[in-house]
């Protein structure tokens, strides 16, 4: 029996607004609530966190929300290291904190990026003995197989999802959009507006603002607001706490999501989705998108698989004409993809839950 790790420090620097805060918060909250650990989330900017977590005060130096102590990143320089130190996405640690770690080394884990690529399995859980310090950092990769760390999921998520009553709607399609800036958006909006089918596009405030402004000839108004053109109605909505965002995903016929946190939530939502992956230099994201689609589309009928693949690739390439051209086939494929989305979520639920596998991993390496 390994000694119990009581104290977890989770470190997060905001690079990409909501993604970093979203993942770090979900993990910290699960460590505190599901695993009953003493958790401090050290974060360098509380504003994105306050936008997606109810009760977070932007100006507070220290606060406790949902059992998680939230503190300013730099203040960790004067803190005693915890038993386990989680570094989200290799964000780095304050150097004085690292100095203190040398005197009583914690289990130091770098929580890496999610990917469906096969090489992840070969590096998940490997040590990284530090060349300049007497410390070892362990690399922990989320993923889609049993040989990875798995995905974050609250224990009651499926029950909440099942109990959610999707509101009765008029005819038409509900689409949620949370993507990066994307030059394909104006052409996609055109296709939605001219398609004849009523489409309600729910857009989070400020998302892809430049692309919408180009399409409209003026900026989208601030939330809450509605803009209509042809058969498309754009609802600009404020950012909402994570559980409410889940409900937004659950009630949509199609979710366009991005990065990592909303990407994972879209899969748990059991709805068709399109992933706008973080664009990388040398188009490295293409291989990552292809690897995910290869896994995700296994068993999906050829026509529907081709439709979502063609749309995803065009949208991720920012190719407006190709995205618009791919939309009619994706629209037709949505019922098939909805059935598949439920089966996919059930399959994922059989994999390790990330916070649980991370705690087990940390305990196995705790002296």
């Amino acid at each position: 029996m390994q000694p119990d790790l009581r104290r977890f420090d989770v470190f997060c620097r905001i690079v990409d607004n909501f993604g970093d805060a979203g993942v770090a918060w979900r993990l910290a909250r699960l460590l505190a609530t599901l695993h009953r650990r003493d958790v401090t989330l050290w974060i360098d900017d509380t504003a994105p966190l306050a936008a997606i977590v109810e009760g977070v005060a932007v100006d507070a130096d220290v606060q406790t929300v949902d059992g998680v102590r939230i503190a300013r990143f730099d203040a960790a320089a004067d803190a005693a290291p915890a038993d386990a130190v989680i570094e989200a996405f290799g964000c780095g640690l304050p150097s004085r904190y690292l100095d203190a770690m040398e005197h009583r080394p914690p289990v130091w884990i770098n929580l890496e990026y999610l990917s469906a690529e096969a090489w992840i399995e070969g590096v998940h859980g490997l040590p990284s003995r530090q060349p300049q310090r007497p410390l070892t950092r362990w690399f922990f990769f989320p993923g889609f197989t049993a040989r990875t760390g798995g995905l974050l999921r609250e224990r009651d998520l499926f029950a909440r999802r099942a109990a959610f009553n999707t509101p009765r709607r008029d005819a038409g399609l509900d689409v949620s959009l949370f993507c990066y800036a994307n030059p394909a958006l104006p052409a996609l909006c055109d296709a939605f507006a001219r398609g004849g089918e009523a489409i309600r596009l729910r857009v989070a405030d400020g998302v892809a603002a430049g692309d919408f402004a180009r399409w409209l000839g003026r900026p989208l108004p601030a939330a809450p607001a509605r803009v209509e053109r042809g058969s498309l109605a754009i609802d600009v909505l404020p950012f909402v706490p994570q559980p409410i965002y889940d409900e937004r995903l659950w009630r949509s016929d199609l979710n366009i999501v991005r990065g990592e946190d909303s990407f994972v939530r879209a899969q748990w939502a059991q709805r068709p989705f399109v992933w706008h992956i973080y664009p990388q230099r040398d188009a490295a994201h293409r291989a990552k998108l292809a690897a995910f689609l290869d896994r995700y589309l296994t068993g999906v009928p050829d026509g529907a698989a081709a439709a979502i693949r063609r749309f995803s690739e065009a949208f991720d390439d920012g190719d407006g004409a190709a995205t618009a051209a791919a939309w009619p086939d994706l629209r037709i494929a949505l019922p098939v993809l909805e059935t598949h989305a439920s089966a996919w979520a059930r399959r994922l639920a059989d994999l390790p839950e990330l916070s649980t596998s991370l705690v087990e991993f940390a305990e196995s390496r705790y002296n």
Partner: protein
Amino acid sequence: MKIAQEVRAGNVIMVGKDPMVVQKAEFSKSGRNASVVKMKLRNLLSSGGTESVYRADEKFETIQLDKKEVTYSYFADPMYVFMDAEFNQYDVEKDNMQDALPYLEDGLACELTFYEGRAIAIELPNSVVREVTYTEPAVKGDTSGKVTKPARIASGFEVAVPLFVGTGDQIEIDTRTGEYKRRV
């Protein structure tokens, strides 16, 4: 200094106080323009092997090791003694000889690697010729080499050889893989 992304197989990097020879380095692109490098490393002091992963921008001190051509002389328990062209003798611990032991014989030409004046590794020629001291009788006619049998050499090491190889034959062995190459 080198960053992990620049480290190649054959480089020697310092990890803490340990010189580690890089046996393999695999680069992979992670998220948001970050990358990782998976390395297979061998500790030149302890001979212990390990797999590690580093961020591509992790910095390492690299070292150049001294090397010297030598021949094997004799075993003075627990050290193996080698000699260079000027008749200087060098002792190598058994733990650092593991890969070489199957092929060791008097006069074997090889290269010693030194770290801080201490011989820590031995590098063999890529292939050596050795006499088969025992194998089941040769089978004439089968020259395909697809079917093999074990053959013992003087060190006791066994090599899979084709059926036509007989006791007393000279065979060439790849020291990197331990595989039979040809009958000499």
